[in-house]
C-alpha cells in the first residue's frame, strides 16, 4: 500500500540520519517544549528522554556493512503487524513470536524509538474501539517492557477503527485490521 511504501521510504531516509547526528536529542528538546505549551505535539513525547542509560552510539552506530540486513530487519519491524482476536488485546503465540523479534530489533537498534499504534476492525462501536485500540497498544508495550525494552522508547496511540488497513467487510479484512502497527520515529 502507498502508506507502507511511504513508511519504508521514511525509514530509509530517517534511520541513517538518526545514526549520524545528534538529531535525536534536538528532537527531544523540541518535544519537551511542545509539551509544556500544553497539548503540543505530544504524540511525539517519546522523544522526552529516549536516550537515558543507552549510549547514543551503541548498537547500530559503527557498522557500515550491516546496512542491507538492517534494512531488511527494519522493513520487517515496521511491516509485520501484531494481530488480535475480536474484542481482545491478548497476545497469542504468534503475536508473542513477532514481538520477540521486535524486542530483538529494538535491543540491537538502541537508538530506535517506536510508536505503537493500536487498531480495531469496523464491527464494534467507535468509542469502545478507541479504548480497545489503546488497550492493544498498551498490551504490546507491556510485553516489550517485560522483554527488557525501556518504556521511554515506546509511545502508544490508538486509532480505534478509524484507519482500516484493508477496507473489506469480511473476516479476512477484519483480521488484518485488528492490529498493533509499529512506526519508527
Amino acid at each position: 500500500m502507498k502508506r507502507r511504501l511511504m513508511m519504508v521510504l521514511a525509514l530509509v531516509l530517517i534511520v541513517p540520519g538518526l545514526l549520524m547526528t545528534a538529531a535525536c536529542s534536538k528532537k527531544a528538546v523540541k518535544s519537551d517544549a511542545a509539551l509544556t505549551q500544553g497539548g503540543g505535539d505530544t504524540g511525539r513525547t517519546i522523544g522526552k528522554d529516549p536516550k537515558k542509560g543507552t549510549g547514543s552510539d551503541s548498537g547500530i552506530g559503527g557498522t557500515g556493512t550491516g546496512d542491507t540486513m538492517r534494512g531488511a530487519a527494519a522493513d520487517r519491524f515496521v511491516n509485520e503487524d501484531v494481530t488480535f482476536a475480536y474484542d481482545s488485546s491478548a497476545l497469542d503465540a504468534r503475536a508473542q513470536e513477532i514481538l520477540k523479534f521486535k524486542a530483538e530489533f529494538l535491543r540491537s537498534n538502541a537508538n530506535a524509538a517506536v510508536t505503537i499504534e493500536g487498531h480495531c476492525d469496523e464491527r464494534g462501536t467507535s468509542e469502545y474501539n478507541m479504548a480497545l485500540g489503546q488497550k492493544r497498544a498498551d498490551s504490546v508495550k507491556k510485553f516489550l517492557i517485560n522483554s527488557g525494552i525501556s518504556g521511554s522508547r515506546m509511545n502508544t496511540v490508538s486509532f480505534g477503527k478509524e484507519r482500516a488497513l484493508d477496507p473489506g467487510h469480511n473476516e479476512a479484512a477484519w483480521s488484518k485490521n485488528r492490529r498493533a502497527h509499529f512506526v519508527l520515529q
Partner: protein
Amino acid sequence: MMNSRNSFFIVFLTLFLPMVCSAEININISNPNMRKIPIAIPAFNASAAGEDAIAKKGADILGSTLDFTGFFKLLDRVSFLEDPKNFNPGVVNYRNWTAIGAEILVTGQTQMQGDTLQMDLRAYDTFKGNLLVGKRYKGHVNDLQKMVRRFASEIIFALTGNWGIFDSQICFVSTGTGFKEIYMSDFDGGNPQQITNHRSISMTPALSPDGNWIAYTSYMKSKPVIFIKNMVGGGGSISSESNMNITPDWVPGKFMLAATLSLGGSQEIYLLTGAGKIIKKITNSPGIDVSPSFSPDGHRFAFVSDRAGSPQIYIGDTDSGRADRITFEGKYNTQPSWSPKGDKIAYSSISGGQINICVIGVGGGGTAQLTYNSGRNEYPSWAPDGSMIAYASSREGSNRIYVMTAYGTDQRRLVSLPGEQTSPKWSARVVRN
C-alpha cells in the same frame, strides 16, 4: 459565532391569558400508545393581499414543526368547513372544527410593515372551547421560521408542561470534506453548519447543557485530545492529560466534564475541570472504562466497561465510586445515553451481526429494542424533553442521522449532506434572542 441568527429580535406579547385550564388534551410523552392529537392549522389570515404567501408559509412551517414531534395528526385543509378569510379574530366557531375531528385549532393573523412582520397566533382547545395560548410576534420577515417555532414551543408547553425540542440543536460528525469534522444543525437537521476545520479525525461532540461550550475529540495533535471550545465568545482549552483523551460528556449543572484517559495502562473515566484538568478518577478496573453519560442530577453516570469480559453498560456513582452492571443480554452493549427524565438508558447493542438501538431502565429492567433489520443503528442520543432519540443509521447505505420517538416509532432521516454522518448528540434547549 456560528449563530448569526442570534442577532435578530422578536417582540412577543401574550394576547390573552388562557383560562386556567385543567387541559383534557394531555400529551404524556411517557405513554408509548399515545394517540396522535388531531390538529387543524389553516393558512394564516393575511391583512393585505400581497401577504398571502407569507401567511400560508407561516402556517405550513407551524404544521411541519409540530408534526416533527410525532404528537400530532395534521388535518388536511381540504376537509375544513371554514375559510380562514372569514375568521373573526378571537371568535371561533368551535363546532366547525370538532365536526372534522380537530381537537386543536391554530389561527394566525399576519400584518406586514416594510420588512417587519407582525403575527397574532392563537391555539384553541376546540372541545373545551377555550384558548390554550395566544401570542403576538413582531420581527424581521426573514425570522418567520424562528417566530413560528417560538409559538410551536408555546403550544408544546401548554400541552405538556415542558418546552419541547424546537430550541435545541444537534451536533454530529460528517465526512463531507473528506475529513471527520464536527457539524451542528437545528433540531430537525435544518441549517447544518460545519464548526471544526481540523482536517484530521474529529469525533464524539458534546454540547454543554447551557449550550455555550462544545467538547470533542480530535487527532489534530497526532493523538486523540479533547478540545473544549466556547461557542459564544470563542476561546477554550485542549485537554491532553494522557496518550488517549476521548468520549467527553458534560456534568449537568457544573462547568465540568468526564472523559476517558489512558494513564498507567488502563482506560479509566476521570472528572475534568472545564479547562480540561484532572479532578479525580471515577472508575477503577484493570481494563476499559469509556463513554460516560451523566444522570440529570449529575451524581451518577452510565458508562461502558469490559471488566466482565465483554463491553457492557454500568452505572457509576461519582461520589462513592460504586459501579453496577445493568446490561446482561448480549456480548456487546455500548454507547449509553441517560434520558433527560432520568429513568432510562438508551444504548446500542450488537447481536447476531446486527447493531441496534435499545433502551433499558436505570435499574436494569425493561429492556426494549427500538430498531430492527435496518443496517447499523448506533450512537443514540435523547432529545432534551425525552420524547425522541437521535441516532445514526446505515439503512440507506451510507451512515445518516435519524430520529425516532422514544418508543421507536416515526423513524426518519434528518439531514442530507455529502459524505457520512454519525455521532449525533442532542443539546439541551438553548434560547438565544
